[in-house]
């Protein structure tokens, strides 16, 4: 039956049902966004939801932000096709939260107003550091957006029965326009509610599928694993590591590099950091991370079952043959289990996921541009809060338009979304994390150290990606007849690893240290004291807005 599906048509299920379930989600969230917009008055409302989101709500919203299409579609797909190696993604994504919980979340909440740069520039020369932090925020957000839009593209083809590039472009534009609307009207508060609803739906949907899959195997994990192994690609052991990355010494090193980027990336992701500013106190930031860790961890356990379930019940050949390739595993499994209705629900959830994550990214990027570049660097602080928010809204529209363009371009690419997101993690871990940790824990850190670390990490990371097999020169896949690289038929790659984290992250730490050691600038003792006392005690932290 599975073969028949793949052969007969490019779509599965009933597009009408898929569209109407998605439409319901959009309608409900639009109403909520409108209601949320009524209390949006100040910059703190627009950027940080007035800082009166509760810890529990924020935990759900973080999960909503974090469990992107990469987690849901990418990881389940990777597990379905490659087995164990896909599981390693989820472990890296989860363990990474401990860095955020132990070292970053509360201290950042206590010292920042709206953006990451508020903390990084606090005791440095403001304008250069803000500029650097804003640039890295924008680059990371764009990488992440590209991944989400690539996911949307594949999903559209698979689920809505839309074929032809023009029609797909229309769908991506619609998704992008909706996202811009959420951000413009609802601001951070509206976005937060969208994420809370989405996280609830996603975790519940994954729970239903998990129980369903396990039920088919008599709630015996071992039997499910056996089923997945039976259906695996010839000669591939999907229960042990190595199926995807074990081939050569280079691919092994690539895997270590990926593992490093995943675990160090989360605490440097600007849209994750920005979520900490929506809660009233540091204790709420802690509470929200604890909620997020539990929700995300449980979701990844579900995704293990869903992934192996898709491998066992749908089979890797069918998945790879479907439009959207690896990313189609979860929707195909939903169809296999519950027919058109479950597929419709899961498809709706997956769309909602992309919409919510893209909205979160857009608001972060627009806040960073308006607050750091426009208000601080261009206007030198001589700007009102409402003027800043006005610029943030315009930026949101521009970023929305750019991501629509990227989405249309990404339609043809069959790259695993989890893999693209991993690149965003590598940039975050290289450009942001070293500076964040140095700022919080090293009193002697200077402006020069921060700039070297941010720009050095950013340039090394993006540069190495540019000259890696991701962009050009990967060997042609005999099955598809295409190279998995972004650009076909040329080869200017000289860096062997797909993920640059192994080189760029230590380099950035080193540059931060070296830049500080070589700088003549004396650390500002008074600013240091203020930052440290504020970070650890929460004195002078931004308060919730009373309405």
């Amino acid at each position, binding site marked *: 039956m599975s073969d028949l599906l793949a052969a007969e048509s490019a779509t599965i299920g009933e597009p009408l049902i898929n569209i109407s379930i998605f439409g319901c989600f959009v309608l409900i969230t639009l109403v909520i966004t409108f209601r949320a917009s009524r209390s949006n008055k100040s910059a703190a409302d627009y950027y940080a939801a007035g800082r009166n989101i509760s810890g529990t709500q924020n935990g759900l919203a973080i999960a909503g932000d974090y469990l992107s299409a990469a987690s849901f579609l990418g990881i389940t797909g990777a597990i379905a096709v490659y087995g164990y190696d896909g599981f*390693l993604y989820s472990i890296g994504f989860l363990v990474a939260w*401990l*860095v955020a919980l132990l070292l970053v979340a509360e201290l950042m909440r206590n010292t920042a107003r709206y953006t990451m740069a508020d903390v990084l520039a606090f005791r440095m020369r403001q304008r250069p550091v803000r500029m650097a932090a804003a640039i890295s925020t924008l680059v990371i957000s764009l990488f992440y957006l590209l991944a989400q839009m690539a996911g949307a593209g594949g999903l559209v083809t698979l689920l809505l029965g839309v074929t032809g590039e023009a029609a797909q472009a229309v769908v991506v534009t619609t998704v992008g326009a909706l996202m811009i609307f959420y951000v413009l009207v609802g601001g951070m508060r509206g976005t937060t509610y969208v994420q809370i609803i989405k996280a609830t739906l996603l975790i519940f949907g994954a729970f239903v599928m998990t129980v369903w899959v396990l039920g088919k195997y008599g709630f015996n994990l071992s039997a499910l694993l056996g089923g997945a192994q039976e259906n695996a690609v010839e000669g591939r052991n999907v229960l*042990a590591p190595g199926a995807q*990355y074990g081939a050569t010494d280079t691919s092994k090193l690539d895997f*270590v590099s990926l593992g490093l980027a995943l675990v160090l990336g989360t605490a440097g992701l600007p849209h994750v950091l920005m979520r900490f500013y929506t809660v009233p106190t540091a204790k709420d930031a802690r509470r929200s991370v604890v909620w997020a860790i539990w929700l995300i961890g449980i979701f990844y356990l579900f995704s293990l079952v869903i992934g192996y379930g898709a491998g066992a019940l749908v089979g890797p050949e069918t998945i790879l043959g479907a439009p959207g390739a690896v990313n189609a595993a979860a929707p195909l499994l939903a169809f296999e289990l519950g027919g058109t209705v479950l597929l419709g629900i899961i498809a709706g959830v997956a769309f909602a996921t992309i919409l919510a994550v893209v909205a979160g990214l857009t608001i972060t990027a627009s806040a960073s541009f308006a607050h750091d570049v426009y208000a601080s660097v261009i206007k030198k602080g001589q700007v009102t809060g409402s003027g800043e928010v006005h610029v943030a809204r315009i930026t949101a529209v521009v970023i929305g338009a750019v991501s629509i363009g990227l989405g249309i371009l990404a339609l043809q690419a069959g790259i695993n979304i989890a893999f693209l997101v991993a690149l965003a993690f590598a940039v975050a871990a290289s450009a942001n994390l070293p500076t964040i940790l140095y700022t919080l824990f090293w009193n002697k850190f200077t402006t020069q150290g921060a700039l070297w670390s941010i720009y050095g990490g950013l340039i090394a990371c993006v540069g190495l990606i540019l000259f890696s097999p991701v962009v050009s020169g990967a060997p042609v896949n005999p099955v598809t007849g295409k190279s998995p690289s972004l650009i076909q038929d040329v080869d200017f790659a000289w860096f062997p690893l797909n993920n640059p984290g192994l080189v760029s992250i230590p380099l950035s730490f080193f540059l931060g240290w070296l830049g500080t050691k070589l700088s003549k600038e004396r650390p500002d003792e008074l600013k240091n*004291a203020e930052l440290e*006392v504020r970070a650890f005690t929460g004195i002078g932290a931004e308060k919730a807005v009373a309405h």
Partner: protein
Amino acid sequence: MSEPNERRLLTPEEYLGAQNSPEFVDLKKRFRAFAFPMTFAFFAWYLLYVLLSTYAPDLMATRVFGNVNLGLLLGLAQFVTTFAITHLYVAHANRRTDPISDEMRERLEHHEYRTAGAATTDTEGATRV
């Protein structure tokens, strides 16, 4: 948009005084005593797991029961330790660091570090690690 002015109410000297106070040194020490070794521990354990998965796949493929192998169990163990460390951290913060930071915030709001600042300026650096 109103600029929160509470932060302006504290002078740089007050911050310096608070930073050099024994209770703040203690607060930082307690924070670091948990966060740094624990970060090192979970990071090392995660790296070990990644390296084992990469360079010892045969070991990881060792069957423990049914189709469940060592690799899967170690992977699930990563989940367990993550949840456990989360719990330990919250307990540590509630018991060891929150009482000090709450009390210090209270005192800062009442400007109780105003005089201490001038007296301890020459010892600044003592809290640097």
